[in-house]
């Protein structure tokens, strides 16, 4: 195996943040390379600081390195200065462990967590010295895989990847390893044979075995060529208790985002927020046993030396027994003062009890996500939290010493009116008012994102708001603040770039034709598009025009039930009629309660895989209305029964704003 370190160390002094490229993290595995093992290079197509903390990548890294037939190293997208140096010196992309050229691995596996990184994947392939198009690659080139949430619609990347993997990776990486190992051992098979064998692994989608069909320029579906499976199902691990990974979380030498111990407390979410792709595609809920969480926290803190632990999930306050777990972490004085952060807090499950436990150590930031300003709008998106829930949560925070809370909202939601948009500010203002009873100058930061419809959600049929419309809505908020500075004292407004939301929306629901656009943008130098300083809408507009595509068609247009969607041949376990019914319910402003504790709506996620929600307690955690619209502030018994699904009026008009 060849290491490029001696060449690299001569040029690292020239680039910003050279520690991005040295590896050396605590928890790193340096594999003993042997030719029979399948060598994986796990790539995160963004900077080291963004990619290193990614838990999915770290989990697969450990699982692969524990296997005798596999070895895994990591790489991240080199920043533009480093890419320039590598090209100038004729050096390829490399792993951070042994600084071995990417082209010497058997598999390059990219984590696709966001659409705007797609051009970085092409950049990494090119830096690895490979043709970016899968069709141009030969048997000497590594296999290119993608996984992560964006792989649920991999069609825009279909020209560049050999296979996309759907769902939880814990088990499937082993099966892929075995297929590749057998192919290597046989020594004579073609790349096409390998791809065919991989398409037999559940959860693995091989785009080259399917054809995207069009009728007069209109997409009509993706169909298998020959005998590829007509539908590719996602993978789901049944019980997180069997997968206590990462066991040795990587501790980087240089500062990264989420620079703390991260322990995943559950996977999946059944709150049923209709805008949330993660909540839909990761069902059912699988909680980690509380005792295992405590052990992973205590051992993790001792091993890493971190003084902060984040209990991660899609909605951590929903974890049964959250208060006890937080209390145990804070009380563990073996590592000095430990602070606990809970990302993704549901306001209806955040209680004074949790706030009181959290504030015992250093206070971390508190962010709540009401998502929308009016109850009507929250029924549409099925984020069933009442204003009282929010004010109670905010009161819990301010009364326990927080001076600032952050609130996340979406704008550009289906049926949204200007009244809904402006209600965001009124809600934030009332939060500040609540804060004044406890703090002298409480502040609220309001962050507003433009809504981007995603595949496998009820909103997959919704036409995204145009760039101008998103901009106008943010303008409404800004003008209102400017007009009444006194009324909104203590309120800070942040918003996302509407142009980036448009490009994200295009890739999110785009079809295979977008490959040409992505390639054009990359060839024109459009990398790191997820970074404001590099994002260039002009490159995208030019490429779209060149290939006769429009945002109007791909982004802003409402889809119909009859039309084919580019991901119809893939499955996240959800029944399409469930999603459609949920979309109709949304338009009828009809909310659905959490199915974890009450009725089953037959979305398909549990039944299709023969598994159920794994929750440690049949009783939801105390606090708020729990999305039920009822007072469940004391926790307590919740009747478990199968209830009839609330039926929306079938003849209602589909009206979308």
């Amino acid at each position, binding site marked *: 195996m060849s290491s490029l370190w001696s060449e690299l160390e*001569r040029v690292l002094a020239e680039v910003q943040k050279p520690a991005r490229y040295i590896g*050396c993290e605590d928890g790193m595995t340096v594999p003993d390379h042997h030719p029979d093992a399948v060598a994986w290079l796990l790539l995160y197509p963004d900077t080291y600081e963004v990619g290193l903390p990614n838990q999915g990548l770290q989990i697969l890294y450990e699982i692969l390195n524990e296997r005798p037939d596999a070895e895994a190293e990591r790489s991240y997208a080199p920043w533009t200065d480093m890419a320039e140096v590598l090209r100038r010196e004729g050096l390829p992309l490399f792993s951070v462990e042994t600084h071995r050229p990417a082209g010497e691995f058997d598999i390059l596996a990219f984590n696709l967590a966001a659409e705007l990184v797609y051009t970085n994947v092409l950049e990494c392939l090119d830096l690895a010295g490979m043709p970016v198009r899968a069709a141009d690659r030969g048997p000497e080139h590594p296999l290119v895989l993608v996984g992560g949430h964006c792989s649920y619609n991999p069609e825009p990347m279909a020209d560049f990847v050999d296979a996309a993997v759907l769902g939880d990776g814990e088990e499937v990486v082993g099966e892929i390893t075995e297929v590749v190992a057998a192919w290597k051992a046989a020594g004579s098979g073609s790349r096409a044979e390998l791809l065919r064998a991989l398409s037999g692994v559940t959860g693995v989608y091989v785009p080259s075995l399917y054809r995207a069909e069009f009728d007069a320029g209109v997409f009509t579906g993706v169909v298998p060529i020959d005998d590829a499976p007509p539908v590719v199902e996602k993978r789901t691990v049944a019980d997180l208790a069997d997968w206590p990974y990462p066991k040795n979380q990587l501790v980087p*030498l*240089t500062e990264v985002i989420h620079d703390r111990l991260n322990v995943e407390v559950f996977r999946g979410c059944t709150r049923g927020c209709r805008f949330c792709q993660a909540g839909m595609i990761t069902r059912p809920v699988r909680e980690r046993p509380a005792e295992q969480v405590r052990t992973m926290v205590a051992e993790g803190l001792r091993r890493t*030396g971190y003084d902060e632990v984040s209990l991660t999930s899609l909605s951590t306050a929903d974890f049964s027994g959250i208060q006890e777990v937080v209390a145990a972490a804070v009380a563990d004085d*073996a590592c*000095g*003062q430990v602070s606990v952060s809970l990302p993704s807090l549901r306001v209806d499950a955040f209680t004074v009890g949790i706030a009181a436990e959290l504030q015992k150590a250093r206070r971390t930031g508190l962010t709540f996500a009401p998502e929308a300003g009016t109850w009507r709008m929250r029924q549409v998106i099925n984020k069933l939290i009442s204003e009282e829930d929010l004010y109670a949560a905010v009161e819990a925070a301010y009364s326990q010493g927080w001076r600032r809370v952050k609130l996340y909202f979406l704008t550009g939601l289906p049926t949204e009116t200007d009244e809904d948009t402006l209600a965001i500010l009124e809600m934030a203002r009332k939060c500040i008012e609540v804060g004044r009873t406890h703090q002298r100058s409480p502040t609220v930061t309001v962050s507003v994102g433009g809504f981007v419809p995603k595949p496998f959600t009820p909103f997959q049929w919704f036409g995204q708001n145009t760039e101008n419309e998103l901009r106008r809505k943010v303008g409404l908020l800004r003008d209102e603040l400017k007009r009444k500075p006194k009324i909104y004292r203590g309120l800070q407004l942040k918003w996302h770039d509407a142009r980036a939301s448009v490009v994200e929306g295009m890739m999110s629901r785009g079809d295979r034709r977008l490959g040409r656009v992505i390639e054009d943008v990359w060839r024109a130098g459009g990398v790191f598009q997820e970074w404001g300083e590099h994002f260039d809408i002009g490159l995208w507009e030019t490429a779209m025009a060149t290939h006769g595509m429009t945002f109007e068609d791909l982004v802003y247009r409402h889809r119909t039930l009859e039309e084919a969607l580019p991901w119809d041949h893939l499955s996240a376990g959800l029944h399409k009629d469930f999603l459609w019914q949920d979309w109709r319910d949304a338009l009828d402003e009809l909310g659905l309660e959490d199915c974890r504790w009450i009725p089953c709506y037959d979305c398909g996620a549990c039944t299709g895989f023969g598994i159920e929600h794994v929750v440690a307690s049949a009783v939801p955690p105390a606090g708020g209305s729990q999305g039920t619209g009822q007072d469940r502030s004391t926790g307590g018994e919740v009747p478990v029964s199968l209830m009839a699904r609330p039926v929306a009026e079938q003849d209602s008009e589909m009206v979308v704003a």
Partner: protein
Amino acid sequence: MRLRVRYSKKGKVRFTSHRDVARIWERALRRVGLPMAYSQGFSPRPKMSFGLALSTGHESEAEFLELELSEDGEGEAIDWNTERFVDLAERLTGALPVGLNVVAIAPVEKGDSLQQAVTSCTWSIEVDGMDMEQMNAWVADVLARDEIVVERERKGKPVVEDLRPHVLALDVTGATETGVRLLADLGTQPRALRPSELLAALDPPLKAGTVCRMHQWMSQGDDREEPLTAPVAPAPSATVPA
């Protein structure tokens, strides 16, 4: 109680920044469970102070750090005998990444900060593309000058500065694969002259390969001594100037 620690920084880890190293130390101290004193305030941090910053990418045999231990006497009182220091140095090295090695630890009285106390550093500088003769001529040229005036930017404004007083000694010690090795004593007060600035002082500028800080010096009358000498095993034989 205050401890002074001497450590080296070699290999890949040299590409971490001064700020990175501070964070690495914080985690290492928590891992070995040393009872640190904490700062007051909204966001308490363990009390530790670093000496002169080392440029990212440079190696060092002589980095220093001072730690303030908690006085509140919780748990067993620590008997700071010889073995404890050796043991602590080993445990700290074990908790630090490969390339950061603790070579000496000793208790010190509270005094001037290391940044104020240190007046010069000895650097080993690999200069690429020069032979012995050329390098000796360059050294003679530098040492013969009364002043070496350079203009540099400070807080966005150009300032004119004479580097010559900071150049205390230069010695070409031998050839390397790609050039020669220069040993340079450079002053640190009121600000430290960096090896790269020295090499760029004359036209044309010279290109540095690996740079390693060999010593940091504090003035003691006409003499100089190190804040903590190395190699020190066992650690307590370290001499600690007041």
